[in-house]
């Protein structure tokens, strides 16, 4: 699926003293099978932006297009199945007595048969590395396990685009790495992933493209190297290190990922 936002504006509480303009004309696409990272400071509009991707929020003006068609012409339930949204701290919404019942809830609601639901629950728990937790109570899990189970609940709907809002906040470093592995796995399975995060070092490792939000506009959109080397105050540590060497060693290039950066710096040191 190709998802497009065209000149999307959003205003919270319009016409009241609490009016806040959150998006001021954002044009952005999510290409089939890519990992698109949305970065930017608190209050820059990241969460508001992604909530337009399945019309949970409706733009004040502008359009959301699914494969070129206005998303408003699709049935809401259909749109939300195809564009799965995982909120910040999604584990807060876990409620069923067991993990498998929790993950089965939404697929059941859309009327899938028992056999199909069982298959999907098994597959989506396996995809997030939580197959062994199926019989457990979601409330007895660790933070990282809960997070993965909550993501499995959205995956079980078979989305074509998965939107993850701060999926790694509050997780330990190794669990964050596991989640990045999950994002790569989803991309290999052909699912587009939109990944909202504060952690630029994570973006460096998984993103195909980056959208840098600031004050409700997309300040820069492009490959990680394009966006980060042009916006050093919003760049991961690797890019900031290399930027400090470029003047003296222009041949160092523009590496972004950790391994690329290590290789480039080793080469520089070895002359």
């Amino acid at each position: 699926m190709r998802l497009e936002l065209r000149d999307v504006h959003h205003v919270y509480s319009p016409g009241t003293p609490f009016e806040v303009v959150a998006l001021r004309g954002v044009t952005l696409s999510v290409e089939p099978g890519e990992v698109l990272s949305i970065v930017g400071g608190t209050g820059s509009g990241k969460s508001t932006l992604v909530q337009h991707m399945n019309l949970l929020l409706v733009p004040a003006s502008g359009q959301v297009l699914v494969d070129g068609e206005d998303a408003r012409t699709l049935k809401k339930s259909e749109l939300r199945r195809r564009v799965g949204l995982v909120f910040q701290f999604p584990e807060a919404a876990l409620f069923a007595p067991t993990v498998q019942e929790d993950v089965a809830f939404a697929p059941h609601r859309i009327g899938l048969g028992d056999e199909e639901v069982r298959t999907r629950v098994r597959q989506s728990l396996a995809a997030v590395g939580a197959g062994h937790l199926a019989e457990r109570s979601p409330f007895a899990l660790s933070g990282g396990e809960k997070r993965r189970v909550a993501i499995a609940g959205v995956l079980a709907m078979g989305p074509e685009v998965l939107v993850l809002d701060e999926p790694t906040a509050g997780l330990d470093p190794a669990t964050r790495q596991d989640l990045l592995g999950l994002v790569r796995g989803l991309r290999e399975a052909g699912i587009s992933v939109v990944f909202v995060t504060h952690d630029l070092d994570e973006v460096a490792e998984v993103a195909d493209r980056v959208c840098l939000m600031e004050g409700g506009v997309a300040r820069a959109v492009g490959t990680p190297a394009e966006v980060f080397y042009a916006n050093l105050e919003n760049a991961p540590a690797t890019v900031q290190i290399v930027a400090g060497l470029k003047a003296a060693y222009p041949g160092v290039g523009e590496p972004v990922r950790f391994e690329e950066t290590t290789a480039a710096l080793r080469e520089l040191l070895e002359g």
Partner: protein
Amino acid sequence: MDGVSLEVRVGEYIGVVGPNGGGKSTLVRLLNGLLRADSGRVRVMGFDPSAQPFEVRGKLGVLFQNPENGLVAPFVEDDVAFGLENLGVERTEMRRRVAEAISTVGLSGYERREPHTLSGGEKQRVALAGLLAVEPEILVLDEPTSMLDASGRREVLEHLGVLRGEKTILHVTHHLEELLDADRILVLNGGRLAADVTPERLLSDTELLRENRMILPTVPRLAFALGLLPTKLRTPEELARAVRERAANEARAR
């Protein structure tokens, strides 16, 4: 928690790390009396937090992860005063403490702002001011920066740095780079105290890090991969400078 024994001395700055589910949050809740130990003993300045929660909460304040959950009042100054009102502090004394706490976290001029109009870093500083107004001797910070962006994180850490030495601080975090100046780091894993070490020692012990699901922050990890001393290099600028110097030395040697 499975048979943990530890002691924190007055004025120490202690980091607490470890995997999700390792026992960090349980430790915090045992310290402020939200949980009672099944066996063993917890004492905070001589008081048992589960039996004497009011004595303990005046002495030990907890800053939680998500600033959204803690702010209740219409204006910043009311929010900061909230804990004092509950303690029945007298009016002029309350004003003095609120003004002082707001200034310590660098929010003077924000007294009449509405908390919902603040950034994440500012909200977390309001929550910190609310704690400081109660004048606790011990601060427990439970992942205070995990919801913040890079600039919010810097803000909060800077204002925490000011309190160092003045307060006894326990700082729970997944970000090792926040603990490079700690006196000690406690590693909790599987409900046990897996290590009680200096930051230098933890950063250079790859085995200990791996066993406890920790990964070196990018700058020291890259320094390590390049054969540079990781504990001396904290910022990207410092690492870039070290690489420049090393490259110049090697060019001269050739």
